[in-house]
């Protein structure tokens, strides 16, 4: 990456109903995003259930930066930059584990899991100017909301919950489908690699226009085998005449609400291995609460996207890890619900159902994103359209005071770019550039 001496301006690349193709193809813009967008705003780092006990840690990325998310002995979360302050080597080389200290393998400088430099071998080799207190690990500002751990370098931002705004209430609704249940991520991941810019994935996460077309294979397979009636029927026909909506959650966050289309969750669920057996067992165990328990097997009917890297879809959590301007890792974390009054058979079914869309839906999306990346390399056709429903008069102030629109509205794209422009114009500490 070249050092930015003066900050470029991007306003001319983001117009009211279109954005410029180079935002997806220019690697210098990508480098700036990794510095300013990832870490310049509250950015999702990890979920508390990935590091459930004191002194647990997970290794993650924040843009291109290797980081460690730790839980100290008192249970507080920390976001540490995984870089020895001595000569630059990463100090943590495991994806997860438990450690009170991280010792750099190179010269054994040792850091606590809160980031302080604890010990240096043969310390007498340093003179009076050596100050261990100045040589702690780089640290992020970290806060969590109901298990979702976010970090930023930005000291100007308000607290996390204020920043999330209506997205916090929507997270509550997503988490409280079975009141009192604890959401756990430690149930494996489906990990994709896409030869496309990371924003193509974010763009799609609140795209209610595409499912009936992009997911023709899934819809046709279901219909050919099961005669329709299950899963995603709301994607067919003129979706704007249906009950789904899109909304602006603020600060680049967006939301598709499908819930009004789902009369009975379990009955409209996609097929999954083990369905008959575990439906019977859950009915035997739960009696008149069985229907409600079966309903939480199925996805939530919510797509909640928290700028810039957290996409909640169905029962899953997707995290975007940009690798380069035209390569993105997309990690789908499976979730389980744990509660005394919910039998684990629900999770046996949830695991199988959470393989359905990653098998029959997401791959077709990723194929289309990759073809977008190919097409966007064409210099002569410069613009990407973002203006659907911009001037149809169909937008309104909806639930929670959010600007809302019919589900095919490209409002989410416009919301994204507004926030993107704001973040790219500031350094990652929140200062003007």
């Amino acid at each position: 990456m070249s050092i930015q001496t003066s900050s470029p301006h991007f306003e001319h690349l983001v117009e009211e109903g279109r954005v410029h193709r180079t935002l997806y193809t220019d690697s210098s813009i990508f480098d700036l995003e990794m510095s300013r967008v990832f870490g310049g705003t509250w950015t999702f780092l990890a979920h508390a259930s990935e590091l459930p006990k004191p002194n647990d840690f997970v290794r993650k990325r924040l843009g291109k930066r290797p980081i460690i998310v730790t839980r100290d002995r008192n249970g507080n979360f920390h976001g540490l930059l995984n870089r020895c302050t001595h000569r630059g080597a990463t100090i943590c080389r495991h994806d997860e584990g438990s450690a009170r200290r991280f010792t750099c393998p190179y010269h054994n400088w040792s850091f606590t899991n809160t980031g302080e430099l604890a010990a240096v071998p043969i310390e007498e080799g340093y003179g009076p100017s050596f100050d261990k207190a100045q040589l702690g690990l780089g640290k992020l500002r970290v806060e969590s909301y109901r298990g979702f751990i976010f970090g930023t370098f930005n000291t100007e931002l308000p607290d996390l919950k204020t920043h999330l705004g209506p997205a916090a209430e929507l997270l509550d609704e997503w988490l409280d489908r079975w009141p009192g249940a604890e959401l756990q991520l430690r149930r494996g991941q489906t990990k994709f690699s896409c030869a496309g810019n990371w924003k193509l994935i974010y763009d799609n996460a609140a795209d209610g226009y595409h499912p009936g077309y992009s997911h023709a294979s899934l819809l046709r397979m279901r219909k050919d085998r099961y005669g329709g009636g299950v899963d995603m029927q709301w994607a067919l026909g003129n979706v704007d005449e249906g009950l789904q909506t899109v909304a602006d959650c603020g600060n680049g966050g967006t939301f598709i609400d499908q819930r009004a289309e789902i009369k009975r969750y379990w009955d409209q669920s996609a097929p999954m291995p083990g369905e008959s057996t575990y439906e019977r067992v859950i009915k035997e165990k739960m009696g008149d609460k069985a229907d409600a328990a079966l309903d939480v097997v199925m996805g939530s009917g919510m797509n909640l996207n928290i700028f810039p890297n957290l996409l909640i879809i169905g029962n899953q959590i997707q995290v975007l890890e940009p690798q380069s301007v035209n390569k993105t890792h997309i990690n789908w974390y499976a979730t389980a619900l744990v509660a005394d009054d919910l039998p684990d058979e629900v999770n046996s079914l949830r695991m199988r159902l959470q393989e359905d869309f990653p098998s029959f839906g997401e791959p077709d999306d990723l194929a289309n994103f990759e073809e977008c990346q190919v097409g966007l390399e064409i210099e002569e056709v410069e613009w990407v359209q973002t203006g659907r429903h911009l001037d149809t008069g169909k937008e309104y102030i909806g639930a929670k005071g959010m600007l809302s629109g019919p589900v095919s509205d490209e409002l989410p794209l416009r919301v994204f770019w507004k926030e993107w422009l704001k973040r790219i114009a500031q350094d990652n500490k929140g200062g003007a550039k």
Partner: protein
Amino acid sequence: MSMNANPMQDGFTLEDILRDTLESTYINDAYYAKLRHDMGEWEGCGTVLTAEERSVYESLILHENWLLDRRAFEKWYQLYSRECVYWVPAVGDLPDAERADPQRQVTIAFDDRRRLGDRIVWLRTGVAYSQLPPSYTSHISTSFVRLPSENAEEVKIRSQFLVQEMRAGHEIQTFSGWMGHVFVKENGVIKIARKVVCLLDAPRNHHNLTFLL
């Protein structure tokens, strides 16, 4: 058996699959327990196949590879028993019964007979854009050994594999690891009851793993 223009599909059509299993009835706690037990047995010390075992089991695995490479999915489907599973764990460094446990976590693929049918119907819709253009594969299997199995009705064969995949517009991808096949006799015919594909890079991000291993 009806005549079919494509000899690779002879006797088995998409229609057969559409009418096949539409319920998922046999995946239960006992079935998952069997998979965990399998993982322990896959860890065992194998014996190279006898000439007779080669002619039956190695031949079947090689035939399976050939059908997949020829994209004869309908015929491939019929190699599997009524209560089968095609399983690709998302964790590496297997066998390990606890870490691999599919009842407790998501996998890259966990297809019972019904979902396996869904997958083939999905591949054949002609609008699965991740398979347009389609993937072509070359399967190589080697190092076949037979593992001791507690269940005398079943035969366990472990092998190493190398699969290359090519899709127009994309670089050739290489996948490797080991596979476990569990064979049973169903109505006098030897069928694959369970196949587990343990990828060397199972825990890593994959690019368009929508073809069959």
